């Protein structure tokens, strides 16, 4: 039996980093992760734009717990509740999305308002002296909102969200500021970002950590996604810059980011022939505008670099050929459920929005020209782990590179160090 402190070998002086593959297969480790990671960290729940109007709600499972969030009809604020009736336990929010005046449990018809208060109990008089209706309100996890991104934690002692996000915060700002400002140039009055309707909800028969790795792994892009690069080439996209430049960064607390130059187009603000000649001058104007607005250093990063941001443990914001917000819930050691949405600036000019949406679908999602091969790769790894004889996965690329390059594994080691630190916490 392995002890937790045997899971990871981290010897920078020897340029050695490795994790034991049982971390990907063992039910005991899986159970321990639930306790030490998913019960302690801040977890992405959803985006405020998903419930724009009073009474709007969204239902979602977060790390196995049924949750829903709803915009209060009284205050307009966002409330997050565990989706369980305080009476006998039935789930009371029984649709993925919708709008409600109040929420009634169908089992015994207890009714709650959008602030979670119990406002209706049939034959309430039959409850005796102990009964206190106020005590029977819906229960909430801790929730915080950073720039529209809603996070929950089941840990009453967790640090505040901003502290938790550490260096990842700046990258969330980059994604949001760049897209928002870019849209403003062409008449978006609204500002802010919104999550589009429509969900990519799929499953991968692999450990959830494989997707954390895969989402920020620059090394695999060339070989795994060669057919995508061929597709771009056939569309007249120049591959001259290829995949290059940039850097993988450790953002603290298990978060990491990969930033690099990539051949695909970016709605802000890298034009490619796939976007059509008509959009070229406007996309170039967005590029120049953002440089002027945010300065040379930040402006160039926003426009010319792609970003794959991993917020520990299971939120990925990819700001690449479009912006994707991806979470993955561990279901079993060899099974995760992925939920992926698209984030866009509000009020973007319709033709630029259409182009952004199309750009997303070329690579991303279960029907894209690339993501299915990621799924295949992760499942192939999971199957390979069963061989057991090869016990360790080496993650030692680029120890001697300063700064680490985009095909190095510095930022993936950051994830694993965050994982290891939390797993060790109570040993």
């Amino acid at each position, binding site marked *: 039996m392995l002890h937790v402190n045997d899971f990871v070998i981290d010897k920078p002086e020897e340029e050695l980093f490795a994790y034991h593959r049982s971390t990907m297969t063992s039910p005991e480790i899986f159970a321990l992760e639930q306790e030490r990671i998913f019960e302690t960290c801040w977890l992405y729940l959803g985006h405020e734009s998903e419930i724009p109007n009073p009474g709007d709600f969204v239902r979602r499972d977060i790390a196995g717990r049924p949750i829903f969030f709803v915009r209060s009809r009284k205050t307009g604020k966002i409330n997050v509740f565990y989706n369980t009736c305080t009476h006998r336990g039935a789930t009371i929010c029984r649709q*993925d999305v919708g709008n409600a005046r109040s929420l009634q449990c169908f089992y015994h018809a207890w009714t709650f308002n959008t602030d979670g208060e119990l406002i209706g109990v049939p034959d309430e008089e039959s409850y005796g002296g102990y009964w206190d209706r106020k005590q029977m309100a819906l229960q909430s996890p801790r929730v915080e909102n950073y720039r529209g991104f809603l996070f929950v934690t089941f840990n009453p002692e967790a640090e505040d969200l901003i502290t938790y996000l550490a260096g990842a915060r700046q990258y969330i700002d980059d994604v949001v500021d760049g897209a928002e400002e870019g849209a403003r140039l062409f008449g978006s009055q609204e500002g802010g970002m919104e999550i589009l309707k*429509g*969900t990519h909800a*799929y*499953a991968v028969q692999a450990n959830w950590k494989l997707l954390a790795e895969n989402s920020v792994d620059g090394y695999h892009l060339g070989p*795994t996604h060669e057919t995508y690069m061929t597709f771009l080439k056939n569309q007249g996209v120049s591959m001259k810059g290829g995949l290059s430049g940039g850097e993988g960064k450790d953002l603290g607390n298990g978060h990491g980011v990969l930033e690099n130059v990539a051949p695909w187009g970016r709605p802000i603000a890298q034009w490619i022939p796939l976007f059509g000649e008509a959009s070229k001058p406007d996309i170039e104007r967005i590029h120049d505008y953002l440089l002027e607005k945010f300065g040379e250093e930040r402006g160039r990063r926003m426009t010319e670099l792609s970003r794959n941001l991993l917020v520990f443990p299971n939120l990925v914001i990819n700001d690449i050929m479009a912006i994707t917000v991806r979470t993955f819930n561990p279901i079993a050691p060899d099974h995760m459920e992925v939920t992926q949405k698209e984030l866009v600036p509000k009020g973007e000019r319709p033709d630029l929005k259409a182009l952004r949406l199309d750009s997303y679908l070329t690579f991303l999602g*279960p029907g894209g*020209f690339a993501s*299915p091969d990621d799924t295949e790769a992760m499942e192939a790894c999971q199957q390979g782990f069963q061989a057991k004889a090869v016990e360790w996965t080496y993650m030692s690329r680029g120890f001697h590179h300063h700064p680490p390059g985009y095909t190095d594994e510095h930022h993936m080691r950051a994830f694993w160090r965050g994982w290891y630190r939390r797993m060790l916490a109570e040993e």
Partner: protein
Amino acid sequence: MQKERSEVNTLEKSLESMSRQEVEDFLYKEGDLLDHWKLDEWLTLYTADAQYLIPTNDLRSGDPENDLVYINHDFERLQALTVRLKDRRAHREYPWSNTTHLVTNVRLLGVEEECLVVTANFLVWRFRNKDTDYFVGHYRYALQLVGGQLKIRSKHILMDMTSLRPAGAISIIL
């Protein structure tokens, strides 16, 4: 002789006079070409201005210009898809999976905007290595006659499963 006669008949056909059996034969042919991975031939069933759309499971009314969908291919993108699927580096489909397209409940809803609107139910099974995936739902076709031959102007694929799970991808053509 048999063959010649059917060709003559097709040339004289109008969309209005198309029988359900003829349409069914056409849809079965599409399924058969896909099951046998005859992708080049399959592509010839589509018009040059075709659309192949798969909205997400949770938003079957999804509009690709405003909502996130799974797939929204025009003819050029469909061609690119066949190029990809014939490439041994399309790892999710190398080697190719075994598929069966079951097409049923075919109904001809009449001619609208020079297209014959056809709905059908489908069940597509996909087997590969340890994967068993199913895709269930409703097709909505708009068919045209081009040079006397039925062609697909649009194919909308609306899935009934509440999510894609347990499938991990739509790596085949539905």
